[in-house]
C-alpha cells in the first residue's frame, strides 16, 4: 500500500533561520499533498497544500516544493519563529481516495 515518510524525526534551528522539513511518498499516482502543523495538546492544523501539476507553492513564510521524479516533498519555513515550534506532518490521499494518510512527523524546535 501507499506510505509516507519523513527523513528526520527532529530538527532544531535558531530563531530567524530558514527551516526545511522533508517528506517522501511511495504512490506515484498521488495527486495532492498537504502539510499539517500540530502544536502540543492540539489537533493538526492545515498549513499549505500542493497539487501534482505544480512544482512549487508559496504561502505566508512557507513554501512547499514537490519533486515528482523522486517522489519527494518539502516544506520550507522562512525566518523561523519560536511559534513555529511544533510537529509537522505531510499527508497524501490513500489509494482508495477515502482518507488522508499521514507521514511520520518532524518535531521542529526553535530556540531564540
Amino acid at each position, binding site marked *: 500500500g501507499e506510505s509516507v515518510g519523513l527523513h528526520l*524525526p527532529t530538527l532544531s534551528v535558531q530563531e530567524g533561520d530558514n527551516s526545511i522539513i522533508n517528506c517522501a511518498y511511495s504512490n506515484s499516482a498521488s495527486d495532492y499533498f498537504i502539510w499539517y502543523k500540530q502544536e502540543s495538546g*492540539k489537533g*493538526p492544523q492545515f498549513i499549505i497544500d500542493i497539487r501534482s501539476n505544480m512544482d512549487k507553492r508559496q504561502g505566508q513564510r512557507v513554501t512547499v516544493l514537490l519533486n515528482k521524479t523522486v517522489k519527494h516533498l518539502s516544506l520550507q519555513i522562512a525566518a523561523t519563529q519560536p511559534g513555529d515550534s511544533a510537529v509537522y506532518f505531510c499527508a497524501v490521499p490513500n489509494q482508495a481516495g477515502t482518507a488522508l494518510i499521514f507521514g511520520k512527523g518532524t518535531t521542529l524546535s526553535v530556540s531564540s
Partner: protein
Amino acid sequence: GEEVAQTPKHLVRGEGQKAKLYCAPIKGHSYVFWYQQVLKNEFKFLISFQNENVFDETGMPKERFSAKCLPNSPCSLEIQATKLEDSAVYFCASSQLGPTSIGYTFGSGTRLTVV
C-alpha cells in the same frame, strides 16, 4: 459551531473496561474521520463516515473497536475490553468537501490511558 468538539479530553480506563469517545463535527460537514496517535509523530487512520454511512473502515481493529455517526447525535468511537496498547490520543476530524480535500478540521483529541 466552527470547531470539532471532542469529549472527554482525558479518559482513564482499567484494562478490560469499555471506553467511549465522542465527536461533534462542524455543522454542515458531512465527512467524519477518526485517527489514532500512539506516538507523538505517528497518525493511524481508523475509520471515515459520510453522514451516517461508513465510508472506509479498513483501519479499524474490528474485534474491539466500533464507531457510529447517527443523525442529530455526536459521532462515537467505542473500544470494548480495552488493552494497554489502546492508550493513545484519538483525533476526530470533519470535512465538508470530501475525504481527500483540504477542508479537514481536527478536534483537540481525547487522550485515552489504559492502566
